[in-house]
């Protein structure tokens, strides 16, 4: 039973890690941090695997957990064990060739709006599923999404805004 669960989790991890990492990276624009957050989220996912495996969108659970993770056990652990290496400087959005103005604007959004953007637009969930994952109503998801878009249009520099307002 335990072995079966491990195998199942390992398959889920291998199949979804990349998606989860990319989506979290868009939110945090820092690959080492994103990897930490995703690792932390998968650790939590394994700890609650009986529940997570039964969800309609386990990926969404992981992404949400990663985005909500604060300075976690994993982060502290990593810092402590790598003190000697001195090479933990975070990569920036420019290093990652991200659309930095958009990423910067995303990072300024409230957590809930970022969650909605991540799940609705990056993961491609529909409004109902997003609402279920976040434990809020569909209309609240729509409200958060509209507010997020409005904020992004306001925050992104003019040349970017042109595209968003066409």
């Amino acid at each position, binding site marked *: 039973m335990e072995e079966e669960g491990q195998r199942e989790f390992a398959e889920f991890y291998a199949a979804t*890690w990349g998606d989860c990492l990319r989506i979290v990276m868009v939110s945090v624009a820092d690959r080492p941090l994103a990897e930490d957050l995703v690792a932390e989220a998968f650790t939590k996912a394994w*700890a609650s695997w009986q529940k997570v495996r039964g969800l309609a969108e386990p990926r969404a659970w992981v992404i949400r957990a990663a985005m909500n993770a604060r300075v976690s056990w*994993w982060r502290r652990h990593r810092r402590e064990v790598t003190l000697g290496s001195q090479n933990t400087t975070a990569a920036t959005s420019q290093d990652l060739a991200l659309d930095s103005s958009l990423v910067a604007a995303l990072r300024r959004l409230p957590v809930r709006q970022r969650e909605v953007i991540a799940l609705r637009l990056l993961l491609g969930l529909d409004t109902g599923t997003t609402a279920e994952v976040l434990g809020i109503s569909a209309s609240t998801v729509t409200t958060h999404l509209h507010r997020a878009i409005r904020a992004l249009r306001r925050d992104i520099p003019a040349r970017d805004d042109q595209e968003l307002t066409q």
Partner: protein
Amino acid sequence: MNNDHALTALKDRLADIRDSLGDAHPSIPASEIIARARRRRVRRRLVPGLTGVLALAAGATVAVTAPLPASHPASHRPRAQLAAWTVVQQPGGIIHVTIRELRDPAGLQAALRADGVPASVSFGNGQQTACRPYPGGGFMTSANPVLISTVFPGPGVNIRPSALPSGTGVLLAFLQRSHPQPGRPGIGIEVAVVQASQQCTGN
């Protein structure tokens, strides 16, 4: 302004960003994720008395449980899992001290000094009046030479000798503390960077 167009444009741009990140593979195998979750679960069972960290001007205190007494220390490799304390050299030159029982401070001090850490160690309420704080030896920076570790590989202290400023050492004070759960022992840890001297750190 059209919200649908804005939504579509934003979605496309986000998809471009996401896809531009390319294929990525986990840097940590699933087995390690599972193992870490298990270790965390076990640690929560074994160390229910972990009550948090209180940062002070010249140190910090943390309460940990002292599970079981046992044998004496080991340098570099622990000889017994349940020794009163262990000193283990980790990759990167970090020295991790784990305390389980307030016993043989002189032995711990000698073990640390043998590992190149100018150290002053006390157990109980003994005052280390011979030690003088090192100006600027505060905490909470990534290059901190001494950190209280509540997580890995167990409650204790991590020391990075190479990060100690010249002419300094480490003061470690372990104190008996009350445990949140009645009947269980607790240990408080205070750490500080101090000025090295014959009287304080032995050099």
